[in-house]
């Protein structure tokens, strides 16, 4: 099977960028990462269909010269699905924003309490710790205004 080098390079670049974005703490970037990864995968599916040819319309070109129509149908379906997921993710990110005014991935409550327990020593009463959930908001405000160094300092 022949496939275009250019397409493969593009897929590689998109995968790299997508994974990079996905690993970010900002939810909007996670969404962008998913979109980029989705498009990289769509290109991969297209390239799985073999070399490009004429449009797959009967009568325009001999059948052998046509490009594979099936992968195009598959990619169309995949695009629709990615769009739906993106819309849902946007809605839920917006919900997260209205709840917490933060665009960051909220940490697991267990993680948070373990970290605080470590910071303050084991014997601190857990119940007391859990009531302090509101301090998260101020933490992330610094985070957004400042830099990634702030996030690292927290961690």
């Amino acid at each position, binding site marked *: 099977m022949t496939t275009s080098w250019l397409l493969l390079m593009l897929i590689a670049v998109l995968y790299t960028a997508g994974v990079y974005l996905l690993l970010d703490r900002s939810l909007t970037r996670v969404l962008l990462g*998913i979109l980029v*990864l*989705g498009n990289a995968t769509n290109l991969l*599916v297209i390239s799985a269909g073999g070399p490009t040819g004429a449009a797959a319309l009967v009568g325009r070109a001999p059948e052998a010269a046509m490009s594979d129509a099936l992968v195009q149908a*598959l990619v169309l379906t995949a695009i629709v699905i990615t769009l739906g997921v993106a819309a849902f993710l946007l809605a839920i990110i917006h919900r*997260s924003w209205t709840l917490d005014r933060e665009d960051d991935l909220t940490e697991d*409550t267990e993680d948070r309490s373990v970290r605080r327990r470590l910071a303050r020593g084991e014997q601190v009463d857990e119940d007391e710790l*859990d009531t302090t*959930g509101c301090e998260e908001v101020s933490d992330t405000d610094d985070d957004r205004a400042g830099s990634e160094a702030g996030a690292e300092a927290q961690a």
Partner: protein
Amino acid sequence: MNPAPGLVESLLPLPVLLPLLGAGAALVLAGRPTAQRTVSVGVLAAVVAISAVLLAGAAGGPKVVTVGSWPAPLGITLVADGLSTVMLLTSMTVTLLVLLYAIGQGTSDDDARTPVSIFHPTYLVLTAGVADAFLSGDLFNLYVGFEVLLMASYVLLTLGGTRSRVRAGLTYVVVNVLSSLVFLIGIALVYAAVGTLNLAQISVRMASVPPGTQLAIHLVLLTAFGIKAAVFPLSAWLPDSYPTAAAPVTAVFAGLLTKVGVYSIIRTQTLLFPISPVADDVLMIAALATMVIGALGAIAQEDLKRVLSFTLVSHIGYMVFGVALATPAGLGAAIFYVVHHITVQAALFCVAGLVERVGGSTSTTRLAGLAAASPLLAVLFFLPAINLGGIPPLSGFVGKLGLVEAGVQDGSVLAWLLVGGAALTSLLTLYAMAKVWVLAFWRPVDQLPAEEPADDRAGPAGPDRSGRSDDEDRYPVLIGAGPPRGPGTAAYSGELLGTPARRAGERTRVALPALMTGATVALVTVGLALTVVAGALYAYTDRAAGDLLARTPYVSAVFSQTVDTRVTR
């Protein structure tokens, strides 16, 4: 029962079509809860009946329908063989019972803000996706089935949009989108290698692909399905996200979603890549790790829902073990185990919902005296719990015994290791269940560690050790958000929450909501009935496993239907 020829084929698309049409109808009927409930219950009951007919019909060999009569690589093939029909019947029965449970919960919560208009259509779409995944004879259609059920599951998991659900939902969505992308990459690779996506055609053509390429494609697909089935080390997302959802949602997810992943693993292993020693070994090791680590996780948890989520992960290991053995005995036991586990795990999550209703919490540190407060609830928990742990003569024991026997037959070092791991996991599961039982059900109320009594009451930022319910106090409790904690129901919660603990000394019996209890009783009964029919079911799953490993019944049934023999490219 022997259905007329042609009948089975014409019924085949209905488990996918009916719920989708029902979802549309339910959406139109928004604002008329009674009509909506009638539609969804009616549709699901019909689907259960159709699945039973399909099960009977597929006994004579796989039944195939090419949708719209398009030939194989272009059109979509639906196939009902022994494996898919037994999965379909089990999952649809559980779905119907959990729907009744959800209706019971919604009704007795009697909350005007309940967005039932979203719940019912989404639930039906989920059902359609599950049915499509089970019946699909085409790899891409399997992907579409997955996406349909995942999309619905995203909505169900984040229902109500409370803070904890949004947080858990984000993890769940991102992880599952990634697994779908991996699946799509696998599809691209398969298509590039063999030029078709029809499962039967792939299985024939894959033989001519070089072994290295085969292994690469195989492992990509296994990774995708492994994430969906929550096989260790790809399982971390499950105990994090499932416990936050409403009880019926968790029950149906636990029963079905991971099993769709297991089903796909079985299909890939048997139909597409029948000879794959490397992948089998990988699966063996993954199964061992899944079983033991999941069970250890279950022991470490304090919250009942989290305990159950970890046992869910742990027991996926048993099924993967059976599949990895790649012998008829192992595969038959694995299919039997899937059927057993769908019912038992769903029943346990329904019970967890009832515990939350009665005790006001699912944390074992705050529950006590439930056996005295509600003996029926205690029985309902006890039976599936020991069934899960594998006490003879229940179906869990039969399934585990079958797996152990198959492992011993195999005789390799790895298989023996897994047999040991399976026995250990069974004991650990039993320990985790016994711990819950002793703490939540048997412990006398006065032994409950002293806590400020105000803890349980509805109020701003009520502290909860699990840290999950704090926001549900502040935001309206929507469908099945657990115990009624919203300010509007404060009187009710004052009546129930935290008090059985303090009042059980007076031997107050807590009344259980009728429909929820009825549905749970039915689920538990189905689980027990599996024990009664274990012999027949085991014979059935063994035959299904034999057919799967022989491959020819499936492939020839598909080829006799689809005329297409020309090579696409």
